[in-house]
């Protein structure tokens, strides 16, 4: 078997390269973030390699194959867990938690003040009153879109690993489900980072769509009419996702057993192109009555 991983003797060169060429003049953490971003992307790439290997191994079942699969998945899971142990990630998450706590505290204070003061001091006073969210799940407030996007990269990798581990859809797996949900909630809350990196985001959303289980568990809701003026500020994402819709329509071979999930994801993204992030609300569980004011 060809060893296609980076030769260990080259690792030092690459780390040195990152530290030399990342711009640390204005943001001192840039090199650390570059390392983290490269690493999470490399993890996703490695997951794709292992996905193909596992598929081959499962084609010839047996104890040896099972052991090898277990070994590969352990390796992936460790790499995935290790990523969030990076100092730059831990610091960023701590900052985010602190800011969220601060928001909660501020909101509690504001509720006790006069309505006029409330309007002036609310951090979202000039924005739409409702933060973006998916279905009835509570919205989240993103303070650093860059960090949130990287965490979504990490969640996408987690979903992929879990799907390799347990290649079933439509089954309830708490951790997997909540990871998919967190990815969608984050995506709904993100605005600034809705850039042309749409295909990458589509991969995460697609994997989330698969985890949600497709139309048997989550129907696609088509009847929303989204006012175009409400999506003007996020036109970048809207345009990118138009392309992503086509991209997803070309997804014919991934997880053949998940074809319906793919259709759901494609529909999701198709709807998304009309109304940007709020179309995430087009997916709903069968047993939930979706109100028209509950979209993103």
């Amino acid at each position, binding site marked *: 078997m*060809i060893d*296609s*991983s*980076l030769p*260990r003797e*080259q*690792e030092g*060169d*690459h*780390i*040195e*390269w990152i530290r030399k*060429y*990342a*711009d640390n003049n204005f943001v001192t953490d*840039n*090199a*650390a*973030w*570059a*390392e983290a*971003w*490269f*690493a999470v*992307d*490399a*993890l*996703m*790439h*490695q997951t*794709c*390699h292992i*996905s*193909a290997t596992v598929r081959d191994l499962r084609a010839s079942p047996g104890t040896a194959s099972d052991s090898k699969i277990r070994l590969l998945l352990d390796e992936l899971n460790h*790499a995935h867990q*290790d990523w969030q*142990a990076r*100092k730059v990630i831990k610091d960023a998450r701590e900052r985010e938690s602190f800011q969220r706590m601060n928001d909660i505290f501020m909101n509690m204070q504001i509720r006790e003040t006069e309505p006029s003061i409330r309007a002036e001091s609310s951090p979202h006073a000039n924005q739409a009153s409702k933060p973006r969210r998916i279905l009835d799940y509570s919205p989240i407030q993103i303070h650093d879109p*860059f960090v949130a996007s990287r965490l979504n990269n990490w969640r996408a990798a987690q979903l992929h690993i879990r799907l390799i581990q347990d290649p079933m859809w439509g089954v309830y797996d708490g951790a997997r489900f909540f990871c998919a949900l967190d990815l969608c909630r984050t995506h709904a809350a993100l605005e600034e980072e809705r*850039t*042309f*990196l749409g*295909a*990458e985001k*589509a*991969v995460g959303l697609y994997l989330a769509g698969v985890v949600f289980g497709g139309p048997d568990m989550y129907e696609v809701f088509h009847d929303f009419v989204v006012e175009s003026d409400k999506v003007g500020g996020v*036109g*970048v994402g809207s*345009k*990118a996702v*138009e*392309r992503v819709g*086509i*991209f*997803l329509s*070309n*997804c014919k*071979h*991934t997880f*053949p057993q998940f074809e319906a999930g793919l259709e759901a994801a494609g529909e999701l993204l198709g709807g998304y192109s009309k109304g940007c992030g709020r179309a995430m609300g087009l997916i709903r569980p069968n047993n939930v009555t979706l109100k028209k004011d509950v979209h993103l």
Partner: protein
Amino acid sequence: MPFTISTATPANDIYPPPFAPEPIQGDPFDGIIFPGDSNMDESLIDTGLAPLSNFLASHSSHHTSPSVNDSPSPPKSDDERTGAYFNFFLTELEKCFPYVKLFPWTAATLFSSSNHNPALRQSVLAVAALLANKNTQGQAEALGHLQNALYLIRDKLSNAGVDEGLVISSFLLSHFSIMLGDHVTAKKHLRGMLVVLEKLNPSRESNRIVVPNPSNNTELTILIWRMAIRIDFISSVTSGQRPILPKFCLHGLHD
């Protein structure tokens, strides 16, 4: 389907067979030039920007807001138009490509590299035109640049051999394809990029796939390789097939 540009056949033909067995005698890219390719409109190559003949006239009236904040203002001549799109691409690079925010020299380096490399310049323009205009004429312009780029890449492969400009051009064409949702062609361009890289970085070990090394390749090529890895995993998830590029893991990269 708002986007209908097909890039499949040119990419199919332009690169040598993937992972062709070594060693290859003489010019490894001999025999891959297809002057009679039915998908290549020679008139486009001769005139450079032929598909854009009506672009300016309709640009201002049909132009919808581009996907990024500011599109290039409608220039008057082909040169101005090309320059405007090129500048547009460079200024918007951060929004269109990953990592650029952390490596802000990318735009300037790409600009200086493309000054001396017509194939790379055409590749940049193809992506820029696609980014800036979603209307039919914008797509036609993008296709024109794409065809120019493919022609120039072929020419370079047959006459001048490989260089890092070809690596970057291949990546850009792959990016172009993924923007159109064409992951099949995107993979072909990635495969081509890998072949070129292997020529640039021959491995001493027969069982080791070569990846770019900072000691052998420019900083732009290293960064482009990282970007290509993303295209590769997107294509892999989409197709359900093994990625084209080798694994690239830094085992000891933790803080």
